[in-house]
C-alpha cells in the first residue's frame, strides 16, 4: 500500500509540475513536450487503476499521434517563441474568477463532502481489457460507435477536399 502511495504522489507531483510548465513556458516546443510528459503520467495513473487498454490508447493517441502533429505544426510555422502577450483586457480577471470558483468547488468536495469515502471495490476479471471494451462498444454502444467512425471519416474527407487544389482550366 505504501509503495502505491509513494508512486501515486510522485506521479501526481510530476503531473502538476508538467501542467504548470505547459502553462508558464514561453517556448511552444517546451510547452508541447511538457504536455507529452503530462499525458504519459496520466497514462500511468490509468495503469495504476487497472485500465491498461485506456492507458495505451492515451499514450498512442495523445502522446503519439496528436502531439507529433502539434510539433509538426510548430516546426512548419516556426512559431517556437511566443511573441508579446496580446491578451484581451477582460480575459485575465475572468480567468482569475473562474479559477477561484473551481478551487472552491474542489475544496468543497474535498473537505465538506457528505458521503464517506468508499473502499475500492475489487474489479471483475478482465475489467477494462480489450475484450470487454470491444464487447461493450459493439454490443451496447454500436450506434454511437458507428456514428463516431462515420464522423471521423467525414472529417478526414473534408480535410482532403478543403486542402485539395482545384484544377483550373489552364492547368488542365
Amino acid at each position: 500500500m505504501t509503495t502505491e502511495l509513494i508512486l501515486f504522489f510522485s506521479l501526481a507531483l510530476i503531473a502538476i509540475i508538467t501542467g504548470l510548465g505547459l502553462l508558464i513556458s514561453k517556448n511552444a516546443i517546451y510547452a508541447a513536450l511538457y504536455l507529452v510528459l503530462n499525458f504519459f503520467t496520466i497514462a500511468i495513473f490509468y495503469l495504476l487503476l487497472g485500465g491498461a487498454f485506456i492507458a495505451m490508447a492515451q499514450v498512442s493517441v495523445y502522446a503519439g499521434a496528436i502531439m507529433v502533429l502539434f510539433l509538426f505544426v510548430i516546426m512548419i510555422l516556426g512559431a517556437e517563441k511566443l511573441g508579446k502577450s496580446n491578451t484581451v483586457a477582460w480575459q485575465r480577471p475572468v480567468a482569475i474568477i473562474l479559477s477561484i470558483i473551481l478551487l472552491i468547488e474542489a475544496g468543497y468536495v474535498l473537505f465538506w463532502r457528505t458521503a464517506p469515502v468508499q473502499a475500492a471495490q475489487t474489479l471483475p476479471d478482465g475489467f477494462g481489457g480489450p475484450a470487454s471494451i470491444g464487447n461493450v462498444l459493439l454490443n451496447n454502444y454500436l450506434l454511437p460507435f458507428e456514428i463516431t467512425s462515420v464522423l471521423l471519416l467525414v472529417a478526414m474527407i473534408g480535410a482532403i477536399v478543403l486542402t485539395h487544389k482545384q484544377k483550373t482550366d489552364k492547368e488542365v
Partner: protein
Amino acid sequence: MSDPINLIANWLQGLLLGLGLSVGLTKIILSFVGAVVVATIGMLTVIFLIWLERKIAGRIQDRLGPNRAGPYGLLQPFADVIKILTKEYTTPDGADVVVYNIAPIMAVASVLLIWAVIPFASTVVGTNLNVGVLYIMAVGAFGLLSILMAGLSSNNKFALLGAFRSVAQLISYEIPMVVSLLMPVIFARSMGLVDIVEAQMPWFIILSPLAALIFIIASMAEVNRAPFDLMEAESEIVAGFHIEYSGMKFGMFYVGEFLHVFTVGALVATLFLGGWRGPWAEQYPILGLIYFYIKTFVGYFIVAWVRLTVPRIRIDQMLDFNWKFLTPLSLVLLIITAVLDRVLVLVNSERWVYSLVMFLANILIIWATVEVLKKTTSKPKRKEFPMRPVAMAPETSTSTEPSS
C-alpha cells in the same frame, strides 16, 4: 538447470528476503534488476550486431568486411566504441540544449521499452500485459518524438528536413503496420504477446504470410533503413536529423537504429514465427530462449539483406507505395481474415482446416494483387524529345544588323 534465469531470480529473491527486506520492496528491486539486465543485454547485442551487419554487408557486396582487429574482425566494434566515446561533443550555436541532449536518450529508450513485453521463453517474460500489441505501438511513438526533437533543436535546416521526412514516413507506415498486427490478434484472440505465442499452433506465418510480409515491410520503413532511409539521404540532406550530433550522442542514435532492427526481428519472431516455441521448449525453457534468438536473427537477417540489396526510393514513391498499395492491401486482408475467421469458427472447423483455409485465402489475395498490378500499372513511357541538331547556324531572321 533447465531454467537458469528463474533459478537466479529465485536465489536473488531468497537472498533479499533473508536480509530482512519486505516482500514488496524485494519485488521492486527484482523488477529493476530485470530491467537493467534486459537493457544491458540489448546494448551488448548491438555491439555484436554492428560486426555481424558489416560482415553480411561485406559478403553481399563481394568484399571481406572487418578483418583486422581480432579473429574475423570480432574486436572491430570495440575499437569503434572506444573511438566514438573519446570524441568531442559539439553543440551547435543556437541549439536548444535541453531538448538537444534528451533526444538521443529517448531514441534508445523508446526501443528498449518494447523489450518489456516480449516473451523470451515460456517462463521468462518482463510483463504479461494484456494489451501488448497496443503497447508496442504506443512506445514506438516516443521514437518518432525523439527524431522530431533532434531535428527541431539542432538549429540546422538539413536536420529539420530530415525530421519532416521522418514524420511523413513514420506516420504513414504506422497504418499498414497496425493493421497487419491485427492478424495475429485475430488468430490468438488476445492482444497479449504471451497469449499470441502460446496460440501459435501452427506458426502464424503459415496462417497469414501476407500479414508477415506487410509487417516486415512497414517495420523496415519504421526503422528508417534502406530502401526507406530518405530521412538521412546523404546525397540530398547530408545526414538528416542527426547531422549535428557527435561522439556518443550520435552513437546513441546509431545504437537505437541497430537495436530497433533487432527488435523488429524479435517482433517478427514473436508474432509470426512462434516466439520461443520449438521441440522441448516447454520442458526446458533455456531451449526456448535459444529458439527465440535464432528466429530473431532470421528476422534481423531478412531486414539487413533487403537493406543491402535494394536502392533508396524517392519520397513520392515511398508515399505512393504506402497509401496506394500497402494500406488498401492490408485493409482487404483484414476484412477477409476477419470474415473467414467468423465463418470458420461458426462451422466449428478443426485447426488444420482453419489453417489451410487461411493460408489459401492469403495466397489468393497475393495472386489477385499481382494480377491487378499487372493490369493497372503501365510502364512509364520515355518522354520523346525532338531531336536536337548538333550544330546550327545562328538565327538570322531577328538579327538587328544595321541596314545600310
